[in-house]
């Protein structure tokens, strides 16, 4: 497991209050992890801060799952 995955998982677990083992690659923030649309905005804000990157709005909309987030962040670094 990569370091990026660990850090993203930690943010998701803290923010959404879900069990760590639920946060798998295909897990959808909204459908599987109980996030509402505003939670996804906050998650993106948290990723931006944690990794010191900018996630534009059109890219943010494509980040639906834990796997999407990890992939985007690795690409942006």
């Amino acid at each position, binding site marked *: 497991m990569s370091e990026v995955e660990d850090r993203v998982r930690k943010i998701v677990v803290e923010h959404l209050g879900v069990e760590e083992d639920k946060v798998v690659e295909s897990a959808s923030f909204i459908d599987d992890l109980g996030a509402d649309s*505003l939670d996804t*905005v*906050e998650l993106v*804000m948290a990723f931006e801060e944690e990794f010191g990157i900018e996630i534009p709005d059109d890219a943010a909309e494509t980040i639906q799952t834990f796997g999407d987030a990890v992939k985007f962040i690795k690409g942006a670094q």
Partner: protein
Amino acid sequence: MFDLTGKTALVTGASGGIGGAIATALHNAGATVGLSGTRVEPLEALAAQLGDRVHVLPCNLSDAEAVTALPKQAIEAMGSLDILVNNAGITRDNLFMRMSDDEWSSVLDVNLTSTMRLCKGAIRGMMKARWGRIINISSVVGATGNPGQANYAASKAGMVGMSKSIAYEVASRGITVNCVAPGFIATAMTDKLNDDQKGAILGQIPAGRMGEAEEIAAAVLYLSSKEAAYVTGATLHVNGGMAML
């Protein structure tokens, strides 16, 4: 009565009569205040009067980049931004049939679009803090209309609809978004009216007098307080009964 100790507030249009009174009221309640406006001198003068816990943050609200940067500057200066008061506004009155595109868009840009940008910039930190207060200064004219002010009335009514929509979205994060809608308030602008004009205006006001800037500031102070946590999406009309809405 309301204690804002430890809170930080940004007030736009703080060089004007109402904005200055709002900044003073929030400061007197213990808040650290950021004074914004286009004219630096009156901001400096107000800052000198208030003493400590004050930051002067000049900004031209018709400059989109400057507006986007303002919340960041406020956070840098004060450490956070808990309370945002969008008070700045301009008028460019004309009969609707004579109103130019420029008269329309300049008023919409400064009064409504800049408010949108400042809200956006402020909410990010408020969401993280799970606490925030946004107070947008609308106008009685936004609810009643006024001949010669189609642009101004549209901008002020637009503020109300926007505030309610944002209020829906962020209520679960401890952020309230409300409007205060002043009626006729005694300021430098209304001082210029002659007695006949004043008489005509006063005839429409059941209270029989113009309002004071401090009476608007008191409404803003309430909506900024922790006591007003359950008030959101509201418009508080402060107009001496001129329009009972």
